[in-house]
């Protein structure tokens, strides 16, 4: 079999996804329209916090072409409540009903669902549903949420403080008291929304004859959605199929389970007809998880030469109204406090993470999860310390990096840096820029009245997270494993099936490069399938920069042995 084929990993290979995506032949959720399909629309709360006194759906149901209207109680009878649980006892578990049950806790929360012969009709019906809301006092921010006089959003938790976790090393209070300099800052990160170009959507099809559910969803993690739907709907795992072929961007926002996926599945099962819901931009902005809404208060103590003696910090995240599955309310603040020590030797540390419930959309994973705020805060403190001490910003970092001889180094939050080149990277970056000459140019520009800026920051990207990552929010998901099936047909062509899913990463190309190299066939002979739990081995999906590493990286070995066996 294929000898002397040029290696494809590292070579320029045209993306195999492109011909279909460039010609309008993608397979996004909304491109599917099975026979007898109904269109769904949701009625969403205009209130941030209110009790639902009464819902009248009669006018909606009277509209010709409306098949059904579901309310929170209907879903509660058909599906277990979503409860994102953590192995960490400091994370409180609360319910997240797919449709509101008696109380709405954020603007945009789904209250009722209509299925009708067209989306236009479904929206007409939504407008005819009458809801009597009794507004409740609104918890607007974390300060209000922690005020004992404020309402508690989830009675079962007894408090709005849903997450309280601490990482500590040594006696930071004594270290800071004895430090030559302590720099303090309060960093405020506003709420972001991920805004994928494709709004969230899903299409549920329940075949009554075989009692199987197929859910097409704009999901990053079809395996994860399949697992939890199985549990919530009380269906056996092999009867539930989740498909996410082409997904129009995710950025983390499509990595969680969403209420609409459950509600649409319930509606399809109840009616025995396919039901499709495609969010419009407004509902997507209101109900897709938001991100990064937190405050980092931090104090960094250094000696006279800039050596760090300790870091004391508190992260308070506004996690919104619900703890999302599977990541829980802990994901943002715990990651932030975990990565705050950065790539630096940190002899003493105390980092407190707090996740606080408010009347806003739930907070979820998005682009780096906690790391952008963590990096901004620690690097801001390093700069402040350097300025105060009159030390060059690159120099203070070089003095504090975990040195080559320190590896493996365990950070105060438990991350083990096994082997990295923090010092070498910055030294090379300085050389590449000709740092000294650039500083001189900056000085000349200043005298000429021109402000030229030079920024220095360190960032270590952590990808392909393993099973036992200590900084995780402790969710019951196996992040450290992925599997693939490599199939050879009699003609020697290869079909490689993966449990990960692509939402723009080009995995059909990169995984094919790896398989072709490992098996020893031209890339044209490799077909990659992904994003379909029915055809793939067990897996969760794509998040945390994991897919190429876990699905195609060193843990990926079946192609090697199987190739050897068959040749």
């Amino acid at each position, binding site marked *: 079999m294929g000898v002397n084929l040029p290696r494809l990993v590292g070579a320029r290979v045209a*993306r195999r996804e492109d*011909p279909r995506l460039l*010609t309008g032949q*993608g397979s*996004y959720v909304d491109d599917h329209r099975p026979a007898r399909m109904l269109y769904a629309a949701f009625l969403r709360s205009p209130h941030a916090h209110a009790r639902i006194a009464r819902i009248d759906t009669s006018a909606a149901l009277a509209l010709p072409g409306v098949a059904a209207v579901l309310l929170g109680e209907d879903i509660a009878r058909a599906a277990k409540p979503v409860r994102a649980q953590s192995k960490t006892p400091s994370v409180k578990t609360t319910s997240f009903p797919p449709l509101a049950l008696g109380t709405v806790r954020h603007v945009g929360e789904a209250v009722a669902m209509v299925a009708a012969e067209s989306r236009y009709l479904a929206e007409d019906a939504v407008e005819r549903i009458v809801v009597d809301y009794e507004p409740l006092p609104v918890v607007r921010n974390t300060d209000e949420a922690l005020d004992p006089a404020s309402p508690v959003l989830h009675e079962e938790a007894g408090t709005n403080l849903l997450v309280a976790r601490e990482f500590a090393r040594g006696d930071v209070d004594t270290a800071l008291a004895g430090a030559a300099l302590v720099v303090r800052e309060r960093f405020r990160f506003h709420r972001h929304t991920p805004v994928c*170009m494709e709004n969230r959507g899903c299409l549920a099809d329940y075949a009554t004859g075989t009692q199987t559910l197929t859910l097409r969803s704009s999901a990053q993690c079809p395996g994860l959605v399949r697992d939890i739907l199985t549990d919530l709907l009380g269906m056996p795992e092999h009867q539930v199929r989740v498909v996410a072929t082409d997904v129009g961007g995710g950025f983390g926002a499509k990595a969680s389970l969403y209420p609409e996926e459950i509600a649409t599945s319930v509606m399809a099962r109840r009616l025995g007809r396919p039901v499709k819901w495609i969010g419009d*931009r407004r509902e997507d902005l209101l109900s897709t998880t938001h991100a990064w809404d937190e405050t980092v208060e931090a104090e960094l103590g250094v000696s006279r030469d800039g050596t760090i003696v300790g870091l004391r910090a508190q992260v308070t995240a506004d996690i919104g109204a619900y703890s999302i599955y599977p990541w829980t309310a802990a994901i943002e603040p715990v990651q932030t406090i975990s990565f705050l020590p950065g790539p630096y030797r940190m002899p003493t540390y105390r980092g407190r993470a707090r996740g606080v419930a408010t009347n806003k959309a739930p907070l979820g994973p998005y682009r780096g999860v906690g790391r952008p705020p963590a990096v901004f805060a620690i690097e801001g403190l390093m700069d402040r310390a350097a300025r105060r001490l009159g030390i060059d910003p690159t120099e203070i970092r070089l003095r504090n990096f975990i040195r080559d001889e320190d590896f493996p180094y365990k950070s105060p939050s438990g991350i083990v840096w096994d082997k990295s080149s923090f010092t070498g990277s910055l030294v090379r970056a300085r050389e590449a820029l000709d740092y000294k000459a650039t500083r001189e140019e900056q000085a000349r520009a200043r005298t000429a009245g021109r402000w030229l800026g030079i920024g220095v920051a360190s960032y270590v990207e952590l990808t392909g997270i393993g099973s036992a990552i200590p900084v995780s929010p402790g969710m019951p998901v196996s992040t450290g494993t992925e599997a693939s099936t490599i199939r050879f047909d009699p003609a020697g062509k290869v079909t490689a099936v993966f449990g990960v899913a692509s939402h723009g*990463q080009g995995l059909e190309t990169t995984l094919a490069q790896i398989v072709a190299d490992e098996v020893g066939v031209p890339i044209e002979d490799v077909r990659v399938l992904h994003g379909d739990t029915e055809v793939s081995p067990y897996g969760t999906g794509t998040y945390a920069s994991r897919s190429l590493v876990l699905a195609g990286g060193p843990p990926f070995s079946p192609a090697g042995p199987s190739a050897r066996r068959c040749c």
Partner: protein
Amino acid sequence: MADIVTVRMTVNGVVHEGRCEPRKLLVDFIREDLGLTGTHVGCEHGICGACTIMFNGEAARSCIMLAVQADGAELVTVEGLMRDGKLHPLQEAFRDHHGLQCGFCTPGMLMTALDLLRTNPSPSEREIREGISAVLCRCTGYQGIVNAVRAAAPILASER
């Protein structure tokens, strides 16, 4: 409920006739009634540009037009770009220059770029950026798209 109306339009060189409510958006008519799902819906208020098509020879946003407004019109959608089973030079350039990732904005981006190159066959980088600013892309950071449009410009110009 409003009356059902009949609309007739030429799409990618084929005459189509359909019946729909007067309130039906053109993009929904294209996707649902004609089954041409290459044209995407991103915002439904004319901001993101994913739904851009050629309407009587000019780029137009099909999510802020009604199907009835297209009665008698000539449309081209992304499905109509290929020639003799081969990618259009602009599609080829997008592939060569990594002008797409998730592909959701791509149909609108292609139609917008096509319109730009129709009115300005040799645009500067600044003009390309201005031209494609009508379409939002969240994946690429635009650089690959700009490179693709620049590379396609002389090829399309030489075909005129």
